[in-house]
Each structure stands twice: as structure tokens, then as C-alpha cells.
């Protein structure tokens, strides 16, 4: 279909602000009379807090307020209300770094000095540092009160254990599949904790006015979710909390929930009228923001001799950390998607979220998918080798096709997986062996597939308001946050297509719970889809209202009129036209009377017929997931057998985006996703020892630099999503999913050794090569 604005690579609407330094991030805010906050943090991973003595700190200069856990009346949590924002005296600190007190003072230095003067007495307790150990009946209990916590009805914590959720999927009968199989395999994988590493650390500013109004400025992805959590934690009505999120310097999930906001607010309450600011250091970011949970995966696979996968039985054990935040839902999402983009009749999965005394697990781009696919996609390559089959043919044979069935038993009418796979195979020339340039630098290629659906409440809502100005420009207001992904460019493009005006006539405004309308959250790769649908509906509503007025003014039937390039035009007599701006304030008649203005459009979107899965079996035959985004990566690597160094030479990506709204932004996001995946495959691991994060700086925790950048090729296919705006579905997270396993598969293809744990470091490679020599296989 011919679109005017959809599918065009418009420049980012926020680009000029961002290249000039005009964009305001949270730490750029300096308010008059602003105070600075600092925290006291637990030096133990698990300890009872016997006492907190603030008397000396109170006397220090510049100190305006001190709080302890006693300030917190209620537990909060997105799905499972399991935490106070600060550990309470008499209760326990559950990870090393948990806040136990905080100070607001005139300067950050004074706040820090006062923190240093706060005396906390602890009694150290036995701790849990491994999720599998933590599941055992004799493990120390981290949340003895778990049975009394409030929980969303789709999650199932096990009282008197550390298990915060046990997700169960029972499609078909794995035991029978194994019985009738020619071969049965069992492979294990481990994915360590990593951190999101947004370049902008978390930050928050809060101000409490005398009339009880609390204003919170935060670098956050989901202002409405933050507002809700704060309302629950502090017993505040929603109309008394205003959460404002301006420019967000990268999120990747780390800024999805509520973090330091909960610490700043009680301080602000004690210092009425004075704003209080807290900005995380990079060290805080690694320890006290969120981390991607570690995960142990075991996959049993029942295979027919020809490569047909008859059944899988997955066991995933997630290291949820001290509190669950999104952890239980990641556990569920991992279980949901555990069949991968494959059509398998028998899928059994047990996915456990386990409390440990580790930093708090949170959502990280992919929401469990990067982790499970590191296992799923290596499992396929391993089975192919062991059975003497082609890993490509196994994927072709089992990969989803339109009309196929997901692991949850849902029939899919749209499934672009096979097209993406073929595209990637072609772009990486998978059938051509790598050209070898040196006997000590071995090159090889690898592939992997992946998929993801948004793991969101089935009734998650989005709203948009489109205001027309007198001159025919517009404000599109929604709370789908611009976090770098391009929402502020793509959503106006969608509205522009409906209204037939250039996108730069539409200014995007978001992130203010007092002013921009409700949005559940900017997560789950749902913004283009959900907020995009709302924007489209708002534009359609506005267009309809303009046409209502135009039919009166122009004396023509509504159906004969259309919007075109800023005008309302008669379809049959196109010379009959009036500027759209003429209707911005309604119309007026000869006698001076007016009617029907000012023009404003409203759009609200809740996906209909999106239903929960069956509690016992995890099955939902129709529409448990809003959509599934599928695709594949291919790559070529070079392994230096003398140094163990792995260089990724090339990565290729192809996803089924449904409809790409802005190709340049799609490509840019694809590139970033591949390089982020490369980081997890080769460098990134949060090193934890007895609950302590050992590598909390960029020197010790390396992320990819320009030096690591491979040649990047981005492609897409477009099989329209029936419920998506112009057919679009979300892509931000899925794009990262196949990268790490594709690299791992390529490394194995190069040196013949399988790495079941990431990252694959030079030491791992050298160790494996030495082992291989000893096996006499070399």
C-alpha cells in the first residue's frame, strides 16, 4: 500500500536537542534550594538489622533529614509486594548494598559525611548465593513471610521456600515423546548475571509541597508504574503524586520499575518545599539498580531420526536476587517462550524464580529471551552435530510457519521465522565455508533464531491525546517514553499518516502523569504497537471530527471528503479544498456564531481478547500473547588459537517487523542490539562472590567499544501484524535475542569446542583448546 509517511526514514525528532546539549536529563536539573541525598548501605548480603543510630549524624552541619526503614509503612512490588524501599530495623537486609538509611543535606559531601556517621548494628545471617541451592528445603529462608505477601493472581510463590514463582507449562506429554523418540538428549547451560549499563545512571528528584502534592522527576521508562508503586508504598492518592520523566539516557529495562525514587520521597517529605536529589554513581548502577538475573537451564530433547523435534522438557532456575520486582514475570515469560520459534507438539517446562542474597534481578532487553535462547539455539546445534544432521535443516523442519502452533498451543496465522532464517543464511553465505587467512586464526560462521512476545498484563492499556493548534500544527501526548528507541519520532509518524500532514508538524509530548495520558509501561517492545495504536486511534478520532465540521462548511457529504497534505479535499472535485487549520477552532457562520471547536482527538487502546493461560497447564489456545516477533542472526567469527581472543567479523540480522515505520531507526536499533548481544557473549558478567559485586566499574566490567564493532548487516521482512498500527509489531528487544547464541555457535564451528556458559572469554577458549589437545581430538 502506498503510504506517505510510514516506511520513511525521517530524522529523529529529538536529534537536534541531543546533539546540542539542550536535552535535559535528570542530573541536568538544578532547582533552587535543592538538597542532595546519599544512602547508607548494608555491607552484608544477609543480615538482621539490630539497630540504626542516627544521633551523631543528626548534629552534623548541612544535614536536613535522615530516614531509616521505619519511614516505610507498606511493602510495594509490581507483581509481588515483597519489599520496603529500605530495609527496616528489626528486619533483614537481603543483599549487599541494600539501603538501610539515607540523608538529605545541603551538599552531596555533607550528606555523605552524615551517612558515614550513622552507626548500624548487624547480625550476619546464613545466605543464599546460588539459585539451585536456594531451592533446597534446608536453604536459609530469605523471605520467611512470603505466604503473607500480596501477589498478582498469575504468580505462584511457594510459602516457606525461596521460590517466588513456579511457572508450569504442560503441552502434550514429554514422557511419551521421549518414549517414541529415536534419540533423547540432555544439555545444560548457565547464563550469569549481567547489568544493563545505560550510559546515564539512575537519578531522581522529589519535592513535597505544603498542600501534600508530591512531584517526582525521575529518569524512568514508566512514569505511571512508578506513580502506582509510590502510591501503594506511601499511602498517597494518585492525584497527589506527579511523576515526570524527561530525557532518559538509556533504559534497556533497568529504568522500567521503581528504584531510588522510593528512597528520595520520605526525605523530601521531611524537607517540605525543598527538592531532594539522588543520582546513582556508576558503582551504584552496577550493584543497586537492577541486574539481569542469572539462569541455569536444562533442556531435554526427544528427537526423531530425521531431525523432527518430538518434545522438549525445560527446567529453568532463575537467580531472582533479594527481591523479585519483574523477576517472577521474567520467569513466566521464559517459560512461555521456552519452545523457541519452533513448532513442537510436546513441551514441558518448569521455570522457577528463586530468592537469593544477590542484587535485585530486573528486566533487561529481551526479558528472559536472551537467556533461554542461549540455551535453545545451542541445543539445536549440539543435537545436529551429535545426530549428524544439518543445524539448518533442523531449523527449517521445525521452525514455525503460518498455521503452526506455539509452545502454549496457540495457532499462529502470521509467522515470518522461515523467511528471516533464509535471509540470514543468504547474507552470511552460510553454505560457503569461511576463508581461512592464518593457521592460528580460525574463522567460522554461526546462526541462531529467536522470538519474543510482550509479557504484559492481558489488559495493559495505552492512551493518546492529539491536540490541534490554530495554525494546523499538533501536539501528540502520550506516556510511551522516548528512551532512545525512537518513540518520539515513530509515534508522530503514525499520526501523520492518518492526518496526511508532515510528521514535523506534530510535536510529541510524553512523561508527565499530571498531563500526558495513561500508559501502562514503556517496556516489552510494546510502544510502537500499543502506544502506536493509541496514537493512530487519536488521529482517526481527530480526522473524523474535522470531517464532521468540513461537511457542514463545505456542503459535501462526509464520505466524499478526505484529508490530504494539510487540506480537506473533495474526492471528486479536488479543487474544492480548505486548509485543515481552518477547522482547528471549529467553524463559524455568517451570523458570527461558532460550532464544534477546538479540535482534539482521543485514542485509547487495550488489546481485546488477549487472555490468560490456563493456570495448571500454561496452555491458551487463543491469543495469550499480543504478538510474536521472530527473526534470526548469522555471524562470522575469528578465534585466535594463541591468545584465545574472539573477534566477531560480521553479524547479520533479519526480523519480521510486520511493518517498519522508520527504516533508519529500525536499522539503528538492530545494530545496537547486535553489539549489545556481542557484549554478553564475549565480555559481560557481573562477578559475584559471597554476594559482593567484584566488578563495578567500566575497567572491570567491559562493554563493547567501537573497536569491537563488526560489519553489521540489517534486513527485515514485513508480514503485517493484524492488530498492529499499519501492521507493525514491536522489535526493540527481540533484535538482541539471537546474537549471543549465534556467536557461541560460530565459535564452536571454529574450534570444535562447545561453551555452555557465557561470556566466552579468551581464558575459556585457551583452556578448552588445551583440553581438546589432551583428548587427542586436535
Amino acid at each position, binding site marked *: 500500500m502506498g503510504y506517505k509517511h510510514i516506511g520513511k526514514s525521517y530524522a529523529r525528532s529529538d*536529534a537536534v536537542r541531543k*546533539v546540542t546539549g539542550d536535552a*535535559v536529563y535528570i542530573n541536568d536539573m538544578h532547582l533552587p534550594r535543592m538538597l542532595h541525598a546519599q544512602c547508607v548501605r548494608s555491607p552484608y548480603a544477609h543480615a538482621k538489622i539490630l539497630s540504626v543510630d542516627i544521633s551523631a549524624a543528626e548534629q552534623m552541619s548541612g544535614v536536613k533529614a535522615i530516614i531509616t526503614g521505619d519511614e516505610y509503612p507498606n511493602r510495594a512490588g509490581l507483581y509481588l509486594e515483597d519489599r520496603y524501599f529500605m530495609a527496616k530495623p528489626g528486619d533483614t537486609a537481603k543483599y549487599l548494598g541494600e539501603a538501610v538509611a539515607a540523608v538529605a543535606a545541603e551538599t552531596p559531601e555533607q550528606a555523605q559525611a552524615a551517612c558515614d556517621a550513622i552507626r548500624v548494628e548487624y547480625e550476619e545471617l546464613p545466605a543464599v548465593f546460588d539459585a539451585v541451592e536456594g531451592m533446597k528445603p534446608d536453604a536459609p529462608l530469605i523471605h520467611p513471610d512470603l505466604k503473607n505477601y500480596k501477589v498478582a493472581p498469575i504468580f505462584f510463590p511457594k510459602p516457606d521456600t525461596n521460590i517466588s514463582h513456579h511457572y508450569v507449562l504442560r503441552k502434550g506429554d514429554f514422557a511419551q515423546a521421549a518414549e517414541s523418540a529415536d534419540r533423547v538428549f540432555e544439555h545444560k547451560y548457565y547464563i550469569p548475571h549481567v547489568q544493563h549499563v545505560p550510559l*546515564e545512571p539512575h537519578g531522581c528528584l522529589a519535592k513535597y509541597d505544603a498542600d501534600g502534592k508530591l512531584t517526582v522527576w525521575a529518569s524512568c521508562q514508566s512514569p505511571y508504574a512508578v506513580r502506582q508503586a509510590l502510591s501503594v508504598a506511601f499511602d498517597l492518592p494518585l492525584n497527589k503524586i506527579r511523576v515526570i520523566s524527561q530525557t532518559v539516557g538509556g533504559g534497556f529495562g533497568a529504568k522500567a520499575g521503581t528504584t531510588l525514587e522510593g528512597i528520595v520521597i520520605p526525605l523530601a517529605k521531611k524537607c517540605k518545599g525543598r527538592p531532594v536529589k539522588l543520582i546513582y554513581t*556508576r558503582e551504584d548502577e552496577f550493584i543497586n539498580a537492577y541486574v539481569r538475573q542469572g539462569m541455569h537451564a536444562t533442556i531435554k530433547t526427544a528427537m526423531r531420526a530425521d531431525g523432527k523435534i518430538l518434545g522438549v522438557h525445560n527446567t529453568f532456575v532463575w537467580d531472582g536476587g533479594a527481591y523479585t520486582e519483574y523477576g517472577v514475570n521474567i520467569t513466566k515469560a521464559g517459560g512461555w517462550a521456552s519452545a523457541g520459534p519452533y513448532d513442537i507438539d510436546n513441551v514441558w517446562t518448569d521455570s522457577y524464580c528463586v530468592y537469593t542474597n544477590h542484587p535485585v534481578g530486573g528486566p533487561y532487553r529481551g526479558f528472559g529471551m536472551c537467556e533461554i535462547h542461549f540455551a535453545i539455539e545451542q541445543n539445536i546445534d549440539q543435537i545436529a552435530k551429535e545426530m549428524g544432521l544439518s543445524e539448518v535443516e533442523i531449523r527449517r523442519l521445525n521452525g514455525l510457519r503460518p498455521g503452526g502452533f506455539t509452545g502454549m498451543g496457540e495457532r499462529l496465522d502470521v509467522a515470518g521465522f522461515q523467511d528471516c532464517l533464509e535471509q540470514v543464511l543468504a547474507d552470511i553465505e552460510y553454505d560457503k565455508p569461511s576463508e581461512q587467512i592464518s593457521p592460528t586464526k580460525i574463522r567460522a560462521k554461526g546462526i541462531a533464531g529467536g522470538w519474543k512476545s510482550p509479557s504484559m498484563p492481558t489488559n495493559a492499556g495505552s492512551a493518546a491525546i492529539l491536540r490541534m493548534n490554530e495554525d494546523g500544527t499538533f501536539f501528540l501526548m502520550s506516556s510511551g517514553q522516548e528512551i*532512545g528507541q*525512537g518513540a518520539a519520532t515513530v509515534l508522530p509518524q503514525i499520526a501523520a499518516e492518518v492526518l496526511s500532514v508532515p510528521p514535523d508538524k506534530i510535536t510529541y509530548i510524553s512523561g508527565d502523569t499530571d498531563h500526558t495520558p495513561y500508559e501502562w509501561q514503556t517496556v516489552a517492545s510494546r510502544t510502537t504497537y500499543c502506544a502506536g495504536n493509541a496514537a493512530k486511534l487519536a488521529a482517526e478520532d481527530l480526522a473524523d471530527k474535522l470531517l464532521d465540521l468540513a461537511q457542514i462548511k463545505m456542503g459535501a457529504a462526509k464520505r466524499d471528503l478526505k484529508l490530504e497534505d494539510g487540506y480537506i479535499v473533495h474526492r471528486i472535485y479536488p479543487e474544492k479544498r480548505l486548509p485543515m487549520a481552518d477547522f482547528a477552532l471549529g467553524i463559524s457562520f455568517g451570523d458570527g456564531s461558532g460550532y464544534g471547536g477546538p479540535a482534539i482527538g482521543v485514542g485509547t487502546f487495550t488489546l481485546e481478547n488477549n487472555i490468560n493461560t490456563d493456570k495448571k497447564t500454561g496452555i491458551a489456545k487463543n491469543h495469550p500473547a499480543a504478538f510474536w516477533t521472530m527473526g534470526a542472526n548469522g555471524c562470522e567469527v575469528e578465534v585466535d588459537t594463541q591468545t584465545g581472543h574472539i573477534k566477531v567479523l560480521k553479524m547479520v540480522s533479519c526480523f519480521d517487523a510486520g511493518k517498519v515505520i522508520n527504516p533508519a531507526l529500525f536499522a539503528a536499533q538492530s545494530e545496537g542490539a547486535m553489539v549489545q548481544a556481542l557484549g554478553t557473549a564475549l565480555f559481560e558478567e557481573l562477578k559475584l562472590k559471597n554476594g559482593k559485586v567484584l566488578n563495578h566499574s*567500566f575497567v572491570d566490567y567491559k562493554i563493547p567499544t567501537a573497536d569491537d*564493532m563488526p560489519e553489521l548487516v540489517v534486513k527485515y521482512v514485513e508480514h503485517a501484524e493484524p492488530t498492529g498500527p499499519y501492521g507493525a509489531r514491536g522489535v526493540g528487544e527481540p533484535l538482541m535475542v539471537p546474537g549471543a547464541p549465534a556467536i557461541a555457535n560460530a565459535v564452536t564451528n571454529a574450534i570444535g569446542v562447545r561453551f555452555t556458559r557465557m561470556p566466552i572469554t579468551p581464558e575459556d577458549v585457551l583452556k578448552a583448546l588445551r583440553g581438546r589437545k589432551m583428548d587427542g581430538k586436535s
Partner: protein
Amino acid sequence: MKYRVKFWVNEEPVELEVSANRTLLNVLRDELYLTGTKEGCGAGECGACTVIVDGKPVNACLVLAPELDGKHITTVEGLAKDGELSPLQQAFVKNAALQCGFCTPGFLMSGTALLQENPNPTREEIVRAISGNLCRCTGYVRIVESIEEVAAQYKGGAR
């Protein structure tokens, strides 16, 4: 102990009393309110705070304020002239070489310093010049291409 320093920021003279433990980054952000220069680590490891001091790219978080005396400093706020974006800023906008934008000022300063010193860099030289700048969003390729594009304009005499 306070030091009196006189220096230039984006060609404007500045005179300040600074304490010995403050950094150039503190001075720019907290005293001059030039907040375009970002703090990503405060330890010289991310490049978000890169500014140009006497023609060289430096991490502002590593420069102590008393050392500023007599120096000429350019920050991201000083790149656009008379309301017109610099060629590198324009290239970043055109090529979508930024996403969240937090690293962007640092890359622009590293790239600008490189092009001033070497208007015709190779790809390796570009990569080396920005290898101290971290970006989590873009995958770097569009940043490198934007610098290459401006270098090509210079070559074509469009300076």
C-alpha cells in the same frame, strides 16, 4: 584551599574561585550550568564528559579545576555557530547516529577534535579516536560513518 582561575569556555572568558578537589566537569555542570557535558562514571572510563581543551579531547572528570587557568575549552554547547549545527552535528542528526543521546556530546567532542587535528582520518584512526567513548545504544557504526562523512566533505573542499 581556593584557587582563582581564568579560562575560556566556548570563547567566552570565565573567572572563578575553585576548590582544589573540584573537577572541570563539576565546574562546567554545577557552576556554569553547562550541562550538555555528561557524567557517566566520574572516573575517566566512559568518555561521556569529553570536552576539547586547547585542541585536545580530554575527560573533564579527570581535570582538576585549578589546572584550568589560561585554558581554552570547547563543550558541546559551543559546536553550533550562529544557530547552525556543525557539520558533525548535522551528520549525527541525518544518520541517526544517536539514540538515548547521553553519550552523544562526548562522541561529538572526540570526533570534532579528531577532525580538527586530522581532517582526513582513516577508519582505524576514527575508531581509535572514539574508543574511549562508550555507547550502549547504537552499535557505533553510525557514529563512525558520520565522522567519515564529514571528513569526506572536507576532502571535497566543502569546509
